[in-house]
């Protein structure tokens, strides 16, 4: 019973953090994740680069005996990245695999700004066109809210590397 209450409470919570990118149309871009999809937030993580990778893949890291990819969401989405004054945090996100065959699902690490917020739904916001994002298949939705734009990414497509043009990977050669 207690577990159900916790799940229901968590379900209505989201994690929001600013993108490490320049403003768009004068407004800050933020990313939004369901709290259920955030497995951990780490201050420090040893990242091992993988040669020949595209710039959005910072490398791999070990977390709880798993080898996870470390991703720059901003670079993956083609946003212009800005440097950060404080060291970034590492956010471990998970997705459940289709069919529920693997209960643990796929995981990945995102490098995120340290000012992470947990908010409760609903958040007052308005859907806007995602046309200004260069990789629409990686986006579930874009919204305008009081602090700028909220972007909800398609983490499954990102972690599975889907529809990543071969030419994009070959460009690293």
């Amino acid at each position, binding site marked *: 019973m207690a577990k159900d209450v916790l799940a229901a409470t968590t379900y209505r919570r989201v994690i929001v953090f600013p993108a490490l990118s320049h403003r768009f149309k004068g407004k800050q871009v933020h990313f939004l994740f369901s709290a259920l999809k955030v497995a951990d937030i780490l201050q420090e993580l040893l990242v091992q680069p*993988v040669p*020949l990778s595209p710039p959005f893949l910072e490398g791999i890291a070990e977390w709880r005996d798993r080898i996870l990819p470390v991703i720059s969401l901003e670079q993956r989405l083609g946003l212009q990245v800005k440097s950060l004054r404080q060291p970034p945090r590492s956010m471990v996100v998970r997705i459940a695999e289709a069919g529920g065959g693997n209960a643990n699902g796929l995981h*990945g690490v995102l490098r995120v700004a340290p000012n992470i917020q947990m908010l409760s739904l609903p958040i007052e916001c308005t859907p806007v066109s995602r046309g200004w994002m260069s990789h629409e298949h990686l986006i579930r939705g874009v919204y305008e809210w009081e602090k700028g734009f909220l972007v909800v990414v398609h983490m499954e497509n*990102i972690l599975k590397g889907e529809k990543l043009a071969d030419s994009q990977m070959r460009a690293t050669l």
Partner: protein
Amino acid sequence: MQRLVLFQVSGRRFGLDMALAKSIEATNVPQAKGADWRNRGTLVVDGEKVPIYDLAAIMGDTTFTHDARNRKVILVKVQGRYLALLVDRMDRPVEVDNDLVEPLPPIFRGPPRDCFPKVLRREDELILILSPEGLGRIAKHREGV
């Protein structure tokens, strides 16, 4: 169990299936000054001239300074063709449990997956395991450019 030879390139450790390594040769090939990974000389094996591929240059990092006396060439045979891989130094071979070797996460595609399809978890280190076959494809692709 798997047996791997471990080697270093640009200050980082990599692995290679020991069964693929035909021999390890000393070399006097100097460190690459730029991105030119070709023209590092040749080895003659069974009467065949085998070009030496500079792994540091292929991986895009020639800034690390290493002692030229430790440099070695690992001779591997892939699909009937020899490849000579120039590395900065050799470490000891290791025997590891199969469950410590995992595939590279699926988000990595193309060249990084071709070259490093597997990763070894060893103590506090993640060691990329080199596929000479994948590296050979990349070298061939670059030669064609």
